[in-house]
């Protein structure tokens, strides 16, 4: 028998690559969209290097003519702290301004009272409450009755900003989307087109077909991760504290787990509508619960064990452990175990129940 001139695995991978590169929409969703999202969220939640506390000073309601220094000298006292931005305003609209968040705190002057002012905050707004504490502290210090303020040191630990938290989550989310869209949707689309059936009528090995989809997917995903990390580093200065080899292994493990889940979801679905529904069913809870945009620890204690067993939670913990804390895969063994379990388990079931015809 002559040696093979055409290799089925290579041809199948090549076909997937070509089809992906010829689909501009797919390229945007895989590569463009995460960057746009990262950029938007990174800018929206960036830290203010100098914090500004807006304070309005008004004459309290019911107070008649008042002759004295404007703002009863409070503005001078507060001006010692550069964070305060004090404005003296007419008293008509201060409630509206406070409600609308145009000012963080209102100081109402009450001549003759002790102390000669009232503080108004908006207790549902964190900024407003913080403004009140800051103003109280500043005014108290100026009265000289408090002990000298303790020296304050700022923790300068890398990886503590929101963008640092977000980037590994975005990588995890992309690995999930890649597995489900790139494998689940592609397989069902081929089934709907009767291409799976057509392939089945040839001597093509089924393992070649599945491996080709996996390989091409992992290739796209690795490129995607490199782009996200590079973008995060260049634009936001996010650095990976851990070992890049271990990060690559973690990404491959996550890709493997979600490829298995994608294949399982696609193993019997007969229509594009079914697969879309199933994919949303799988992905939506994890987008919210698994700590992509905010820590999953905000959910009640009782549900934590369940959340921690979700594959995306495990993957996000793994990625954050390596990128933000420089941990190794060994110390993160529970997450590694969970992801391996998902990958092996879903592949085994998917191959068993997969519908080719």
């Amino acid at each position, binding site marked *: 028998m002559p040696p093979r001139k055409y290799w089925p695995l*290579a041809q199948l991978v*090549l076909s997937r690559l*070509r089809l992906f590169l010829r689909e501009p929409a797919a390229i945007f969703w895989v590569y463009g969209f995460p960057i746009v999202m990262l950029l938007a969220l990174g800018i929206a939640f960036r830290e203010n290097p100098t914090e500004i506390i807006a304070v309005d000073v008004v004459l309290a309601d019911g107070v008649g003519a008042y002759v004295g220094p404007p703002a009863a000298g409070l503005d001078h006292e507060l001006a010692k702290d550069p964070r305060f931005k004090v404005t003296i305003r007419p008293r008509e609209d201060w409630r509206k301004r406070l409600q609308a968040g145009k000012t963080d705190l209102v100081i109402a002057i009450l001549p003759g009272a002790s102390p000669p002012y009232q503080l108004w905050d908006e207790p549902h707004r964190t900024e407003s409450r913080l403004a009140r504490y800051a103003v109280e502290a500043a005014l108290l210090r100026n009265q000289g009755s408090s002990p000298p303020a303790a020296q304050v040191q700022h923790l300068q630990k890398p990886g503590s900003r929101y963008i640092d938290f977000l980037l590994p989550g975005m990588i995890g989310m992309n690995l999930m989307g890649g597995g489900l869209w790139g494998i689940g949707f592609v397989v069902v689309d081929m089934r709907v087109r*009767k*291409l799976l059936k*057509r*392939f*089945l*009528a*040839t001597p093509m090995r089924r393992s070649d077909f599945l491996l080709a989809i996996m390989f091409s997917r992992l290739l796209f995903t690795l490129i995607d991760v490199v782009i996200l990390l590079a973008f995060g580093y260049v634009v936001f200065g996010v650095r990976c504290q851990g070992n890049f080899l271990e990060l690559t292994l973690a990404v491959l493990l996550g890709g493997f787990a979600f490829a298995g889940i994608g294949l399982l979801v696609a193993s019997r679905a007969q229509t594009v509508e079914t697969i879309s529904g199933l994919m949303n069913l799988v992905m939506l809870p994890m987008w919210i619960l698994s700590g992509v945009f905010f820590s999953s620890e905000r959910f009640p204690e009782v549900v934590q064990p369940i959340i921690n067993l979700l594959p995306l939670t495990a993957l996000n913990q793994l990625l954050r452990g390596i990128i933000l804390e420089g941990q190794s895969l060994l110390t993160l063994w529970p997450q590694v175990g969970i992801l391996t379990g998902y990958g092996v388990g879903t592949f085994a079931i998917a191959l068993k129940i997969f519908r080719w015809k």
Partner: protein
Amino acid sequence: MPHAIECRQLVKRYDGKPPVEAVRGLDLVVNEGECFGLLGPNGAGKTTTLEILEGLLDATSGDVQVLGYRWGSHDNEIRERIGISLQETRLADKLTVHETITMFRSFYRTGIEPDEAIRRVSLEDKAGAWVVKLSGGQKQRLAVACAIVGDPQLLFLDEPTTGLDPASRRQLWEVIHGFRKTGRTVMLTTHYMDEAERLCDRVAVVDHGQVIALGTPKELIAQLGGENVIEFTLADGSPAADEAELARLPAVRAVSREAGAYRLAVQQPHVALPALLANLQASGLPLANLTTRHATLEDVFVSLTGRHLQEEEPADAAA
């Protein structure tokens, strides 16, 4: 002569309420090197039979041998040696013709070069075009190219020209003729009479999951009793003609009547026609129109079942 396909008492039952028997004890023998046609209306069980022979469906019972092998024990041996064009496959839109054929070529250990397959289906001009840009006939020829690129001994074509314009159909017939010149076997399904007559050495007429007639197109037509058909209708308001009397006319072998139209199977139209005209005149029956033509497989089907091939079957018949 060895058999390319042998199929005995083939049954396919789809579970359901009620269960549907798409194929009910079908026997077939296809010789090597012949072009064999399965002819029948939609829902007759043609595609089901073909997909069982192709190894895409499991039979409920019966024995199937393809090129001397059985499905279940020698799947790969069979798949290396057969080529298939399904009734409807949507190949990937954004691969080119050449890329698609090369991919299919890679699945087979041996075969012809992709360029050769493209040449055989006359798609040289479109080799670099995306599949999505092809016309219906070009897509169908691409499907055939994918089927022959593994250099099969046996080619299965399921309704290869359904929905194509006449020019595209003729082009595809050329491709099939070319393939047959190399001594390979072709099995196709069709519900076009002219296609079966043009392409097939032998035809099995299938209805309700069984073979109801088998032979060369000529033999089947000869079974009608006459190779020519005279059809006529009478003017409105005329009384009916006497069919028994018509059947006694010289050279007339069979008479049937359908919705006011009379159909005579005749051997020698030049003998039957004057006799018919004289008879009608003597009976005082005025003609509305009259045509003569060669008998076709359609006439065979009508005489066997009383129905036309293109009639819609009841919906419960599985396609």
